[in-house]
């Protein structure tokens, strides 16, 4: 009895309609938070005493970097669920995550190198966090490459799921080995619990952006998931009913 909700999550028609109903509940708050956060970060927050207005790129960079890891986690966990319980929907979630995560990673890399130009005097610095972000991009590309190389959807699902799970074991190893290899980046300034290094006028818009990006990801994921389910179940009869209404 207690597991019926879990079994219902395995049903593509149920997820398809659930995703359609849930999308606006994530999309609108995401839009409000991102617009509010941008206004707070780009207009209201005072310039940094050291970096001037250059620091404002953090309002896009930090949330993108955060999301690039968070999406990989989501992808690997749902791939693992799909591998263990053989849930088609979980594999569809993992497949929908990968391009979104890769885009967030590219966004974090581009904003990071744009910030690097005035701050470090160079577009690319072999800084540990940028480097591990770059390796993360390669992991996403490998995942997407493996999926696209296999024509059989089930085999692509399960092979790429193994890769995602192997990748998640490696992500912390790669992160720490790269950190140990070289360190130039600023020390993390958000998560100092005792005394935040940022005044509230800077921190609140950043937290709004983080939450907004997370909700934005969920909304995009739900839309992509519906597309993925449509293309996987295109020969099923419920699709005809769902699309005609």
């Amino acid at each position, binding site marked *: 009895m207690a597991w019926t909700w879990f079994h219902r999550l395995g049903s593509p028609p149920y997820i398809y309609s659930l995703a359609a109903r849930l999308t606006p509940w994530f999309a609108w708050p995401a839009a409000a938070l991102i617009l509010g956060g941008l206004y707070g970060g780009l207009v209201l927050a005072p310039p940094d005493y050291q970096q001037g207005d250059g620091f404002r790129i953090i309002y896009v960079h930090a949330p993108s970097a955060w999301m690039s890891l968070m999406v990989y986690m989501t992808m690997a966990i749902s791939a693992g669920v799909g591998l263990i319980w053989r849930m088609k929907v979980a594999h569809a979630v993992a497949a929908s995550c990968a391009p979104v995560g890769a885009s967030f990673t590219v966004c974090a890399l581009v904003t990071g190198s744009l910030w690097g130009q005035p701050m470090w005097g160079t577009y690319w610095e072999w800084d540990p966090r940028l480097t591990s972000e770059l390796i993360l991009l390669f992991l996403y590309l490998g995942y997407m*490459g*493996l999926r696209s190389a296999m024509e*059989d959807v089930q*085999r692509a699902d399960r092979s790429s799921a193994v890769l995602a799970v192997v990748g998640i074991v490696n992500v912390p*190893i790669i992160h720490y*080995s790269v950190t140990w290899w070289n360190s130039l980046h600023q020390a993390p300034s958000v998560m100092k619990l005792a005394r935040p290094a940022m005044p509230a006028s800077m921190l609140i818009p950043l937290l709004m952006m983080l939450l907004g990006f997370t909700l934005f990801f969920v909304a995009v994921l739900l839309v992509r998931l519906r597309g993925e389910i449509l293309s996987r179940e295109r020969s099923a009869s419920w699709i005809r009913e769902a699309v005609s209404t």
Partner: protein
Amino acid sequence: MHRSAAAAAPRRAGAGALAMTSALAAARLTLVRDLRLAFRKRGQLVQPLVFFAIVTTLFPLAISPELSRLRDVAPGVLWVAALLSSLLALEFLFRDDAHDGTLEQYALSGQSLTWLLFAKTVAHWLLTGLPLAVMAPLAGLSLGVPASAVPGIVVSVAVGSVALSLIGSVGAALTLGVKRSGALLSLLTLPLSMPVLIFGARATELSIKGGDFSAPLQLLGALAVLGVTLAPLATAAAVRINLE
């Protein structure tokens, strides 16, 4: 009657022996088989080593013949060349056995596929990783590395290539069902191998400078142990998926 009993007896004995073959014994037999097969095709065996020698020769030609400059880049050159030649050798790991159906027989044999594939990976390391560890100091000497650094290079390449073979076995298993898998295999394997490259090159650099290289060597060992414990499971899962 007498003849049929004589014919049945060995069959029964054979069946009993088969049932008693433990996972370790089966793995040992696989290892011996793979080594024997490899030594019948010596040309293929030498290819990754020749590739390693050629790549390390390219760098003096591309950078400069000055030994002082080459010595600075030697750790990176050795490790990038080792990584690439182990990648090249990965294509031989499962390909032939997947083609002629041996892997399917392994999967159906009732033996632990994890152990059998682990044995194949060990054979692969003995045939490619270990010779690389012997070759690397020779290539290093040609790059102006002092003779005192030779033990450090041998040990770090030997330990690091264990991790490389195991990471590579997962990639090779995942790309079994893909036709032209070379580029995809490198896309899957290289990002996962970067920690090995970092610690391996660091250990080599410290041994060239005459420092204590035990810290990066221990990290390399940790990666190898982690690979031994986890990679065969992932490899077996990936092979099973691609045999379905």
